[in-house]
């Protein structure tokens, strides 16, 4: 499954884009946050400085934090929301 991941902050500056795409293979037809994070590590090594560990990290899925085992469906809005630094 092809998953587009929204990126922000220094990750977006580094990629010169507000999103990156990954090809993800999960178990059967099920793709999880862990699978997407692993694919990001493998397919976008330049973004590793901003990527959390696939087993303990999180992504935002449909505007809510999702942990490693949570599923991602086709059409979901997926975003990398690590390295937050507001305030």
């Amino acid at each position: 499954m092809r998953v587009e991941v929204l990126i922000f902050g220094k990750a977006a500056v580094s990629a010169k884009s507000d999103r990156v795409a990954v090809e993800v293979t999960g178990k059967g037809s099920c793709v999880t946050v862990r699978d997407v994070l692993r694919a990001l590590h493998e397919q976008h090594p330049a973004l590793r400085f901003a990527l959390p560990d696939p087993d303990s990290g999180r992504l935002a899925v449909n505007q809510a934090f999702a942990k490693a085992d949570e599923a991602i469906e086709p059409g979901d809005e997926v975003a990398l929301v690590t390295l937050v630094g507001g305030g």
Partner: protein
Amino acid sequence: MILACIVQGPLTTEAQARVRAAHAAAWESLTFGGGVGAKLRFEGIVRRAEADAEAEGRQRDLVALDYQTYDPMAERGLLSLAGEVAERHGLKAICVLHSRGRVGVGEVSFVLEVSAAHRGETLAAVADFVDRLKRDVPIWKRAVWA
């Protein structure tokens, strides 16, 4: 009462007044109601110098910070965090504003006001909120170097 808003640009006196006017009940709840014994206001202000990670952490002058928010998750995150902090510290009210976009040096980008029965709860709540804001609310800042 809980209020959380993301505001475009710096949190000038005028910008804050507009939010107060639109959400008067929330701001008034910081003071009124009889149970309030302490109110604390925290402002985040853009500093002139920041460490530049791309220059081995050296301090560099900047002209502004550019805040990027992931909307609407960012405002929902502020609201959710405000609710959690209010409950944990027994606050009477909490109002939080955060800028989106460019905020110049010396300008306010973040306002947090909390009230409670006693000062201890307000002091702990502000420290707790600011720590968790940086971890849990999708807002990024980019330095605009001088």
